[in-house]
């Protein structure tokens, strides 16, 4: 009562809650952010891989700061990173296992997982169980999970949400160069004289890469249908028509060939398929490319000349390329363009895929999905023999093919062939295209196990929920887009009974009866890492020289990094510096690509083309950022961007509510933003929201090679919303 009176009278203005304390590193700072100790770690959001210090006071994460010593971000962070400590104690953390909606102890929950999955296998065969993981565990966990899934449990259907993200980059690199792995590094963005960002809105999605292209005098080209924040940084913005990429790339290549900007004699013995490509390009010129890509013919030529005449060119891309039914082939064209113009394996010259999740790269290298650990192909006899020997198992136990990819797992659930599913750290209800399908699929399972740090729309459908530790509570390593391996560290204990994913995997392995064989003597992620170093030795993604001590010494080490004195302390900056790639003869495969039409193209009843993407304030399905007030306050709802001409015709104004429908579903009520960021006839919706879920609309059309969804283009109808 006294406190209330004091409050109403305002005797006390709460100043004691807003005092400042002196911090030896940061200087004066709010007492609420005062720390006892700093823990050096790496950001858990995107793949840029910024180094940060996580501040702990009395066992709670209370502050972060960019690591001034880290080579990636030099002390700076994006808005998500700057409040990342708030994620750890956010609402909605899972703290106790549940079985059929009832709180359970770990023993019962894991027994149910193991007996349940075994039961499904016993009844319906080994092909009836699937695992979907993520790009956000630590490398050590991916390595352990891969072994557990493919060798221990014998699961054939194992994939990650990385297939929704950068699978096309992986497939494209493999087709062009023989193995995955971005050949360049961030420094190349600064050393290049031309940087092309193709379908990459780094200002929103990889903000700490933006400083690398600013103020250095490089010519910046941005290829994007929208006038993104990144397009505003460009010297030349090419507003390509959605899915006009292949046509534009063919036009560029044809122009380069026609104008003799490719040194055919020099390149001939470093590539395969040159003559086929040239023959194919005879059917292309700038005019045809202009018509099919929606880019003015002069711009096609200008772009070709900018790239062709560049001394050093980085061709970087992201989801604008990957999120396409032609993603893989678009990647191969970018690779071909880079190689034909001599932009690979040199300072400031690289075809560079900017990856999505913080450790998508870790799962690319160690995972057991699209390839076996260490970029070993399933059908490579030497690699099989080597891996079997390293693991001391019979080679016949290694799977002979990758098994079903993500969308094929979902389709097999729908058709009843897969009956048990274990989902780890991903939220497909919101992130998978054509939401109706995924919801139907997950509801039809005999057993759905979801392991996550937070309650999500996906955990709501689960039979068993396993509470996992998250970033800040786990030890291990992340590998970023430039192949740099950095440490992540546990700074605080997980809440309640939550356990690290690593512990959960080991426990399940014990119950499955495969722990002794797969994880002999393992107790911590370090054990997994040490084995992975051995397993990667001699492979293109060689981690063998990257000890945790070495990472600490330089803040991050780039693979390949074999042991030995010849390798720089910070590892290898660039791949293919000898101009030989990982294909037979060291030659790059040039591929011939023709554009394919959109499956779900705009038409009278669905007249608009919908593009989806991200905004800087949020991460993926807002499982984390949606719970952080400062970020929510910056972007509290989804919106649909619409050109003024279209809006006027529909009598919509900024701030009005609209209903957006595709052939597959409807967003009932979403706020309109009338803006010339988008072209007449095209609309854009950020995909982060469950409430206004863009994936109710998107098409479940997939790249035939990478199996990545075509998130970026589908046809929709827009109407003013009425109750």
């Amino acid at each position: 009562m006294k406190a209330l009176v004091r409050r109403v009278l305002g005797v006390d203005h709460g100043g004691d809650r807003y005092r400042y304390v002196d911090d030896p590193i940061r200087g004066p700072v709010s007492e609420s952010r005062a720390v006892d100790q700093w823990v050096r770690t790496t950001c858990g959001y995107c793949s840029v891989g910024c180094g940060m210090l996580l501040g702990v006071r009395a066992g709670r994460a209370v502050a972060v700061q960019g690591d001034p010593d880290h080579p990636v971000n030099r002390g700076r962070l994006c808005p998500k990173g700057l409040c990342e400590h708030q994620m750890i104690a956010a609402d909605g953390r899972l703290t106790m296992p549940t079985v059929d909606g009832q709180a359970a102890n770990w023993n019962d929950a894991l027994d149910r997982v193991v007996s349940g999955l075994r039961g499904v296998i016993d009844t319906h065969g080994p092909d009836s169980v699937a695992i979907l993981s993520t790009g956000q565990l630590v490398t050590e966990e991916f390595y352990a999970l891969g072994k557990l899934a493919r060798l221990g449990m014998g699961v054939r259907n194992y994939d990650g949400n990385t297939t929704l993200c950068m699978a096309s980059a992986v497939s494209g690199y493999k087709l062009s160069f023989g193995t995955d792995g971005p050949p360049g590094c961030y420094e190349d963005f600064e050393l290049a004289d031309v940087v092309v960002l193709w379908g990459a809105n780094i200002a929103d999605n990889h903000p700490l890469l933006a400083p690398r292209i600013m103020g250095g005098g490089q010519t910046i080209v941005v290829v994007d249908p929208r006038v993104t924040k990144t397009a505003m940084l460009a010297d030349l913005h090419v507003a390509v028509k959605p899915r006009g990429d292949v046509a534009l790339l063919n036009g560029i290549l044809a122009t380069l060939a026609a104008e003799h900007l490719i040194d055919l004699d020099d390149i001939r013995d470093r590539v395969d398929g040159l003559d086929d490509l040239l023959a194919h390009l005879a059917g292309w010129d700038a005019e045809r490319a202009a018509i099919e890509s929606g880019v003015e013919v002069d711009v096609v030529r200008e772009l070709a000349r900018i790239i062709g005449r560049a001394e050093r060119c980085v061709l970087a891309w992201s989801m604008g390329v990957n999120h396409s039914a032609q993603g893989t082939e678009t990647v191969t064209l970018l690779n071909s363009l880079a190689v034909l113009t001599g932009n690979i394996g040199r300072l400031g010259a690289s075809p560079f895929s900017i990856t999505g999740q913080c450790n998508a790269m870790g799962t690319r290298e160690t995972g057991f999905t699209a390839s076996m650990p260490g970029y070993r192909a399933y059908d490579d006899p030497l690699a099989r023999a080597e891996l079997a020997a390293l693991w001391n198992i019979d080679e016949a136990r290694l799977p002979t093919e990758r098994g079903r990819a993500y969308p094929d797992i979902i389709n097999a659930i729908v058709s009843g062939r897969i009956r048990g599913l274990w989902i780890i750290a991903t939220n497909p209800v919101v992130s998978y295209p054509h939401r109706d399908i995924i919801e139907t699929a997950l509801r039809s399972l005999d057993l759905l196990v979801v392991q996550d740090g937070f309650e999500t729309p996906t955990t709501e459908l689960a039979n068993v929920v396993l509470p996992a530790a998250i970033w800040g509570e786990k030890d291990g390593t992340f590998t970023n887009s430039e192949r740099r391996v950095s440490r992540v560290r546990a700074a605080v204990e997980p809440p309640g009974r939550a356990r690290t994913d690593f512990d959960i995997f080991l426990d399940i392995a014990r119950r499955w009866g495969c722990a002794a064989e797969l994880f002999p003597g393992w107790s911590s992620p370090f054990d997994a890492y040490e084995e992975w170093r051995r397993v990667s030795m001699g492979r293109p993604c060689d981690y063998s020289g990257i000890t945790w001590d070495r990472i600490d010494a330089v803040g991050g080490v780039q693979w390949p990094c074999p042991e030995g004195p010849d390798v720089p302390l910070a590892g290898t900056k660039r791949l293919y510096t000898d101009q030989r790639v990982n294909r037979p003869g060291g030659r790059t495969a040039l591929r011939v690509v023709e554009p394919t039409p959109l499956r779900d193209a705009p038409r009278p009843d669905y007249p608009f083309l919908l593009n989806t993407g991200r905004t800087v304030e949020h991460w993926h399905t807002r499982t984390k950022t949606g719970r952080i007030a400062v970020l929510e306050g910056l972007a509290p709802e989804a919106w649909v961007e619409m050109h003024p001409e279209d809006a006027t015709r529909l009598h919509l104004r900024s701030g009005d509510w609209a209903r957006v429908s595709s052939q597959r579903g409807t967003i009932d009520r979403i706020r309109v933003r009338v803006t010339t960021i988008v072209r007449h006839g095209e609309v854009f919706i950020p995909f982060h929201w469950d409430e206004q879920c863009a994936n109710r609309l998107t098409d479940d059309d997939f790249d035939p090679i990478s199996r990545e969804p075509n998130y970026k283009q589908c046809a929709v109808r827009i109407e003013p919303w009425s109750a």
Partner: protein
Amino acid sequence: MTLVQITTKPPMEAKKTNTPELLALDAGEQYRFGFNMNSCIGCHSCEVACAEQNGLPAGTVWRRVGEIEGGDHPTTRRFHLSMSCNQCIEPACLEGCPTNAYVKLTNGVVAHNADDCIGCQYCTWNCPYSVPVFQPDRRIVTKCDMCQPRLEAGRTPACVDACPTHAITIEKVNVEAWRLDHAAGDAPALPSADLTLSTTRFDLPEDLPIDAYAASDWNLRPEHPHWSLVWLTLLSQLAVGMTFTADSFAQRGATATVASIALLGALFHLGRPAVAYKAFRNLRRSWLSREVALLSLYGTLAPITVAAPGVRPYAAAAGAAGVYASARLYMVPGRPAWHTPLTVVRFTATTMALGATATGQRTYAAAGLALAVLATIANWARLLRNPSPPFRGAVRLETRWFRPWTLARFATAIVGALGALLGWPLAIVFVLGAASEFVGRWLFYVAVVPLNMPGAFWRGAAGSHR
């Protein structure tokens, strides 16, 4: 679990290159922010860094990033504008503050002293950039002080330190030189630097479209109704009006009662009534201080008139001056809909209408009601001449958003005035007049659009933080 700590390393001396340096001031100089619109990528890191540095609760935002846009696809131009306090040379917040809680420090920082803040929020109306914010958990106003504790420690503000592209800088400016030429303090969709000699310097893109508009322009929304102020101003004006015509003992008694309730109510409109006594401190510059002083004097004299009728002219004079001060305090550039002598006319009309009706002066009552309506219409005509949202938007709020209430206000005023002239019972006339004025006063507070920096798309939307 074992924690692997790498801690208490020395503060990274080697990497100074990425940490901006704080320059020492020379005579006649102050600190200011610089903002390069070409370099800003709209990442909002500065906003989050500010919230973290100062431990601000959700919704209390000291630095904001706005967005302006113009042109047509594919040559659309869109730019961002990050702004916190402009550390003005003539800060409107400081000049209007009744308690002198604001101080212009020698380094130029416009600092706010929480101990002296009574939570009246007058500075939030005065600032043409809507910089000071009422922080509900503290019941006072807070604002950016350029990270004064960091400046004292020789460090740059947190936003400057956090900006990944170095778009935000801290600079020195010669105060007299800036007084003479502050053209670089202007930016599109931003109130002119002339108003308060705001010091933030903008590097603007060369290709800014002429038609650039703020992404927040769509979000026209009513302001806070300030219910306590609706009551306070109406009751004080009723009392003052009655004082002019209150002849009988009963009328003087009623007047004194109304005046006392009004004064007491005024206290509780403050965030911190306990320190209300500080409100007299800025009589030299603040109309709010003067209002408090004059109405307090009036509130003291009004009860005396009950026993000593001869005091009534003095009470009336104090009251009239108080009503005038009351009106003047709303005439601030930061609130264009109020920034007009018509506000004085409005308040005078209310005083007439209510006071005269209560004491049976029918002609004055009718005239007051008519004048109140005419002043509103005249104000609309004035505001409509300027197309920018703080002007035209205020009319739009009153005539579109609140159309039924505006119509009801006008109807009750007209019927009330006619009733007064046609000899209807005074009680009915009073109810009509009071209802009209009550709605009118509420509309006065809600149908105003503050000057502000251009906002991001979500500014002011539900769930957004400013």
